[in-house]
C-alpha cells in the first residue's frame, strides 16, 4: 500500500514535470525581436562604473511588469516577458554585452507599482522599465531618466455606449487598478474611481455592465479593445500625460548618461520605432515620434 502511494506520487510528479516541459517548448519563438548583443562591451566602459561591473559579471536583473499586454507581459508559459518596456530593456542589456534571451544572464524580475523604489534602493534590480512614470517625488529616492515613451489616459467603454469622454462620466463609477495613478486622475476628473487588482478584471467589469467605463493609459486600453473587437471601444482625448522612463539606483548616477546614450541611439537607428511597431503597433496605436530625453543631473 505504502509503495503504491509513493509510486503514484512519483508518477504525478513526473507527469507535471513533463507538462511543464510541454509549456516550455511552445514558447521558444515568441521572445520578440532579436537584438544584437554587443561583443567585448566591457572594454567600452570606464573603470569603476557600474556598467563595467555589470558587463564583466555578464549578469543583470531588470524589473518589468508582468501584467500589461503590449508593455510588459509574461504569460504562464513564457520564458521571458514581452512588450515595449521589455524591448527597450533588451536594447540596454544588449549594449552591456549580455544576452537578453538567456535567462541565466538576464533575470526579468517582476516589479509591481508598490515595490519599484525599494527594489532599486536595495539593489534587487539594476534597472526598472515597468511603465515607470517620471515624477519629482520618485526622483528624490531613485534615478529616473528618459522618457522613452509618453502616454496619456483615455476611456474604454462598451461599443454601444453613448459616453463620449471622461466629462460624461461625472459621478459615475469608472474602473482602474487599485492604487494606480490612473485612479487618482479619474477622481480628479469628477468620476468615481473603483479599483480592482488588474486591468483585465476591469475589462470584465465593463463587459458585464457592473461599471460603465474603465480608464488608464491609452496604449493599454487599445490592446484590450483589440482583444474584444466589436464589444469595446476607446473614446475621448488623452486627459493626462505620463512620461515613462527608466529607473536606476542613485548609487550609480553614471548610469544615466549611458541609458540616455542607448536610448538616443535607438531613436536614431530605428530600433525604437521597430520595438514600438512590434509590440504596440498591432493594437492600432500609430507610432509617434520619439520623445525628447531629459538631461541627466550633474553627477
Amino acid at each position: 500500500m505504502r509503495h503504491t502511494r509513493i509510486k503514484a506520487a512519483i508518477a504525478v510528479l513526473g507527469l507535471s514535470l513533463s507538462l511543464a516541459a510541454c509549456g516550455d517548448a511552445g514558447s521558444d519563438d515568441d521572445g520578440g525581436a532579436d537584438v544584437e548583443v554587443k561583443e567585448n562591451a566591457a572594454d567600452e566602459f570606464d573603470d569603476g562604473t557600474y556598467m563595467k561591473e555589470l558587463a564583466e559579471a555578464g549578469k543583470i536583473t531588470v524589473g518589468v511588469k508582468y501584467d500589461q499586454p503590449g508593455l510588459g507581459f509574461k504569460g504562464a508559459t513564457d520564458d521571458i516577458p514581452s512588450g515595449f518596456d521589455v524591448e527597450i530593456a533588451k536594447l540596454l542589456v544588449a549594449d552591456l554585452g549580455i544576452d537578453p534571451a538567456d535567462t541565466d544572464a538576464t533575470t526579468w524580475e517582476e516589479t509591481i507599482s508598490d515595490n519599484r523604489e525599494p527594489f532599486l534602493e536595495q539593489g534587487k534590480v539594476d534597472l526598472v522599465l515597468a511603465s515607470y512614470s517620471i515624477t519629482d517625488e520618485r526622483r528624490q529616492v531613485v534615478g529616473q531618466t528618459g522618457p522613452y515613451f509618453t502616454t496619456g489616459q483615455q476611456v474604454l467603454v462598451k461599443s454601444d455606449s453613448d459616453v463620449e469622454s471622461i466629462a460624461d462620466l461625472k459621478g459615475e463609477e469608472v474602473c482602474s487598478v487599485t492604487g494606480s495613478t490612473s485612479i487618482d486622475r479619474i477622481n480628479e476628473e469628477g468620476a468615481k474611481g473603483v479599483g480592482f487588482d488588474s486591468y483585465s478584471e476591469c475589462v470584465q467589469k465593463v463587459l458585464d455592465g457592473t461599471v460603465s467605463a474603465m480608464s488608464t493609459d491609452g496604449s493599454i486600453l487599445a490592446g484590450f479593445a483589440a482583444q474584444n473587437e466589436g464589444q469595446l471601444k476607446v473614446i475621448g482625448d488623452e486627459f493626462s500625460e505620463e512620461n515613462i522612463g527608466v529607473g536606476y539606483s542613485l548609487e550609480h548616477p553614471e548610469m544615466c548618461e549611458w541609458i540616455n546614450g542607448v536610448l538616443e541611439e535607438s531613436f536614431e537607428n530605428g530600433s525604437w520605432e521597430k520595438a514600438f511597431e512590434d509590440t504596440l503597433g498591432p493594437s492600432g496605436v500609430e507610432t509617434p515620434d520619439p520623445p525628447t530625453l531629459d538631461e541627466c543631473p550633474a553627477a
Partner: protein
Amino acid sequence: MKAVFDEFDAYLQAFGYTLALFLVSGVLSLLLGTVLVAMRVGPVAVLRSAAGVYVTVVRNTPLVIVFAFFSFAGPTLSIQFNWFKVSIGDYDFTSLFCYAVLSLTLYTSTFVCEALRAGINAVPLGQAEAARAIGLPFGGVMRQVVLPLAFRAALPPLASVQIALIKNTSVAAVFGIAEATANMRSLLNDFGATQRFGIFACFALGYIVIVEVFSFLSYRLERRWRVAT
C-alpha cells in the same frame, strides 16, 4: 506620514467605507450565522446536513476566491445588484458594495455558526431538557433558552470572528471599494518613495483603533452579560 495628514478627509472617508462594510456584514453575518447554527443543531436531518455542507465548503474557501466568485461569476449567474444605488452624504453604495457585503457575510457567517455551536455545546443539557419538558417547541427552546445562554458563552470567540471581519474588509480594496487599504495603496503609489513607513503606520493605526474600540465594547458586554454561577 505628511501625505496622510494633507488629505486627512480622504483617510477618514476610506475608513468610513471600512466601517460601513464591517457594520453591515457584521450584523448580517450574525443573523445568518444564527440561522445556520439553528439548522445545524435542529431536528430536521436535511437542514442539518445542508448547513453542515455549507459551512464546510465556504469556511474552507479563501475569502479572495469567495470575492472573485461573486464579483466575476456572479453577474453571469444573474446575481446582479445594478438596481442598488444609495448615497448617504459623501458615501455612495452601489452594486460593488453589495458584492463585497455578500461575500463578507457568507464567509463570516460560517465562522459565526461554528462559534455559536461551541456556545450551544456549553449549555448544560438539562437546560434544553427542562425547556422541552415544559412543552416548548424547538423554536421556543432555541429562542428562549438555548441561544441566549449560547450567545453569552460564545461571546469571546464571536468577538474574535468579528475582529477578523474588520480586517478582512481590506480584501474589498481590489474589488472596487475605496476603503482604507485601497486609499493606502493610492498614497503609496504617489508618495511611497519617501514616506513609505509613515503611510503604513497611519493605516495600521487606523485598523488598530477600530479593533480596540470594538474589543473594548465586547469586554463591556461580556461583563454585563456574565451569568451568575
